């Protein structure tokens, strides 16, 4: 471990960390014997111990939180993952799973006293079953490559986060990722029908069976979005969607955000459910222009990207309706993509917005709040007022259709006090979201970044009840500990009670629990 890390007693570096302590009882630590065991399970190539190499894994897409892992392993099979976890469980060594390391809530932030299990070598698309509209993929497969592989069958994988070129399906399962097209097509939990997982005690087991209607509790649904705290996914059965016959992508430019928002309300209110409906404000447009030269209409206070998909006749009718609505709400320019290349060009601006903001500001914080769509206008007004008050610029990019905001709070970390003011503004924005009955995170997850806001959104009883699930999977608290919940629950012993047996149990036909 190099001396730059200040290690807290919870195994997480205190550099930029906000989550409180989570100490593992009876932890044995990552020592030479453990490392040797890992080398035997995987191979020498797949175990990383060099301190500088370890540090390259210190954070995911959220660079404000960094922590050097005690060890990094890169398994290639589900059996290897299970063996690694079994070894960790025996020694109470905490472990964190990582896909492509692009998450925005620090979900893959490693433990200095633990193992980082990197899934990027497990990246095969195992099978595609077009007749059933299913694919079985390994967790390291990138989101976009699923759609690419499915394309020849006339299918695509619907959840499409902006980072889809690199983010992994395993990571998508952990965060229940959404993306621009989730308004109409749903998010990851609607498109995952089976998971092979390694439980925190090292068992390899299937949740669900790919039908989406397997008997028993919906553990697939509960696991999706659990941010890597209930186990490690080793195979995913995804649902594939037939590629719509027609797609129209419109780019509409408005002089103000208000006008753009009104157009969104009018479109949704008219009964149209677009495939996607995204909005960017002037500052976000400026960044995107600088990055990818998307050539959005000049002088736009807001641009709306509306995508309509479905049968040709429907799309034509909806496109005409959307054009009319946008014009009525004051759009001064409306462009329609004429071909796949133009469609891609329109989306490139939107999808690179986060990273592009780096060009117009030395540093920034990405937020992920959600408000009811009807509250969008007033919340955006309030954000802009706050921005003016604090002198901190905020670029807005968001999924207008479902009220999921991504305020990009821009600041210069070299100017004293600016980072603190930016963080405060971010927090105030989240408070606003909660006030309006929304959520602190629409798709990026809680991770370490937002765990301190959980008590603002949920009561202690709510959080305690959620953690019952965690106790069922991970009673010893070694699976990605310190994430999501600000205060871990002590799982303790669970009394079991027996009653008079059911006739079938008595006859030996079934057993009862």
């Amino acid at each position, binding site marked *: 471990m190099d001396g730059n890390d200040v290690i807290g007693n919870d195994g997480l570096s205190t550099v930029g960390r906000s989550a409180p302590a989570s100490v593992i009882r009876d932890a044995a630590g990552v020592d030479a014997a453990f490392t040797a065991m890992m080398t035997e399970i995987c191979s020498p190539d797949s175990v990383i111990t060099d301190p500088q*190499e370890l540090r390259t*894994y210190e954070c995911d*897409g959220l660079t404000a939180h960094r922590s050097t892992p005690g060890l990094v392993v890169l398994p290639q099979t589900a059996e290897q993952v299970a063996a690694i976890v079994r070894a960790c469980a025996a020694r109470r060594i905490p472990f964190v799973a990582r896909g492509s390391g*692009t998450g925005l809530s620090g979900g893959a932030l490693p433990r200095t006293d633990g193992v980082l299990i990197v899934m990027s070598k497990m990246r095969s698309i195992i099978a595609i079953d077009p007749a059933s509209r299913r694919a079985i993929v390994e967790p390291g497969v990138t989101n976009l490559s699923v759609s690419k592989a499915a394309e020849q069958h006339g299918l695509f994988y619907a959840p499409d986060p902006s980072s889809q*070129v690199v983010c992994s399906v395993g990571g998508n399962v952990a965060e229940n990722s959404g993306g621009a097209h989730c308004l109409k097509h749903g998010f990851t939990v609607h498109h995952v029908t089976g998971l092979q997982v390694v439980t925190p005690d090292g068992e390899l087991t299937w949740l669900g069976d790919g039908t989406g209607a397997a008997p028993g509790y919906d553990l697939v649904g509960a696991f999706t979005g659990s941010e890597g705290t209930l186990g490690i996914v080793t195979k995913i059965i995804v649902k594939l969607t037939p590629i719509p016959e027609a797609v129209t992508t419109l780019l509409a430019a408005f002089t103000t955000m208000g006008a753009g928002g009104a157009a969104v309300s009018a479109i949704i209110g008219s009964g149209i459910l677009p495939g996607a409906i995204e909005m960017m404000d002037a500052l976000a447009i400026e960044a995107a222009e600088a990055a*990818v030269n998307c050539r959005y209409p000049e002088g736009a206070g807001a641009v709306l990207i509306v995508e309509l998909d479905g049968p040709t006749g429907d799309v034509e009718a909806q496109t005409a309706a959307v054009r009319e609505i946008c014009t009525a709400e004051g759009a001064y320019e409306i462009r329609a993509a004429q071909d796949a290349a133009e469609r891609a060009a329109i989306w490139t601006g939107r999808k690179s917005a986060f*990273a592009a903001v780096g*060009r117009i500001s030395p540093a920034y914080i990405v937020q992920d709040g959600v408000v009811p769509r009807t509250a969008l206008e007033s919340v955006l007004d309030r954000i802009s007022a706050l921005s003016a008050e604090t002198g901190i610029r905020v670029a807005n990019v968001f999924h207008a259709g479902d009220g999921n905001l991504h305020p990009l709070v821009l600041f210069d970390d070299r100017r004293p006090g600016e980072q603190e003011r930016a963080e405060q503004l971010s927090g105030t924005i989240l408070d606003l979201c909660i006030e309006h009955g929304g959520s602190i995170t629409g798709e990026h997850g809680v991770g370490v970044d937002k765990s301190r806001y959980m008590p603002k959104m949920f009561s202690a009883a709510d959080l305690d009840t959620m953690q019952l699930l965690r106790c069922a999977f991970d009673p010893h608290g070694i699976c990605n500990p310190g994430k999501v919940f600000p205060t871990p629950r002590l799982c303790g012993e669970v009394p079991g009670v027996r009653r008079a047996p059911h006739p079938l149990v008595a006859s030996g036909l079934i057993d009862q629990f």
Partner: protein
Amino acid sequence: MASESLLDPDGRLRDLAGDCVHCGFCLPACPTYQLWGEEMDSPRGRIHLITQILDGGHGSEAAAEHFDRCLGCMACMTACPSGVQYGQLIEAARSWSERADTATGPPMPLPPRTLRDRAIRAAIFATFPYPARLRAAIGPLRAAQRTGLDQWAARSPLVRRLAPAAAAALSVAPRLARTRPRPTLRRDGAAIISRPGGAIAPTAALYGRGSHADAPSGHRLPARIPAQGSRRAVVGMLTGCVQQVFFPGVNGATARVLAAEGCDVIVPPRQGCCGALSVHGGRRDEAAGFARRTIETFERAGVDAVIVNAAGCGSAMKEYEQLLGEDPGWASRAAAFSAGVRDFSEFLAELGPVAPRAELPLTIAYHDACHLAHAQRITAQPRSLLRGIPGVSVTEIPDAGTCCGSAGIYNLVQPDAAAELGTRKAASVAATGADLVVSANPGCILQLTQALAAAGRPMPVRHVAEVIDAAIMGRPRAALLGG
């Protein structure tokens, strides 16, 4: 430990590295991440290692290895939404390795390479930038090819273990033409040197009596090839090192096409190396020396533009301003020079092709050289020039943006990785079912030829200039597909 201030005195590298927001969009574009799936062999990871070294003053052997494994293909720069100047960062990191290898004086931030690695690199850099030496080194190669010994050596497990670089070199080396250049041509060549004005006869030799695309030009071009028809430009031409030795026919074709399109082509006889391999390998001082000489040579020639038919060279020459920026005597000369550098297809597209092309019914799979597509952002021009030939259809190669594995000297110093990338590229190319693969870089042509042959899917591989030349000269498609 090397002090940070020595590594990055003006904070420039730190600024460049700070542009990275850790978004990861570069990972899927990076060939080594595609191969191994490890953060340290991704651009994002390498930038992180560079930052660690800037912070702490030293890098481990592992870190050095990851820098060496970088292809320098710049696919990450095309993918990066934040505009990180990764090219400059990796060259700085490579320069740390180079200085470590030759270290005298203050300790360097990276450990030196192994003795064998250093020896291989020394041999490469002592030969490749000097066409005469390279040509001499080929003598034994030609003999080996005639006896079939080359194939044995390339495939022999013993040779591959003991001298992987040599085995790799043998396997990519093209079948060299058996005929020596005709004496008359050589006499003409000598005449040109003594008569700088140039003569019609040598140029006629350029247009050749034979029909074989490779033979007529020999290995020396006339110093001046006049424009055909009305003159639209006066251009200089870089003959390159690998290009002129392995593919003199490409240079001939380049000159002919430029002349046919109305350019006076000036080919300074003692050009020297442009320094691309050196600058991409982090050998800045060596590269700067080559750069200065190249600039001087073409300044003397007094041309409107300098045309380059090797993507790696063109890319390096466009960046002379960065290479010589710190030298007050040269900064503005370098800037002016770089502003006039054009890739062959870039220039022709700008000029607007006028020479009539005969029909060439061919499907062509166009392979983007990394230093053309990623470093110079030139992708449309070669395609449109090829499509401008009647009968030609151009198909896209799947995963077009991924490097073939040539990457300068990479296939000599990282033969295993290069071979794996070559295999993948060969599969993608073969999948197109095209008649012909066309590229704009000699290294790629060598790598593709070898990879396709090794995959059992041999396909002819030609330079863009050769195809256009064949169309203008009215040569049959067999001339391009044979050989």
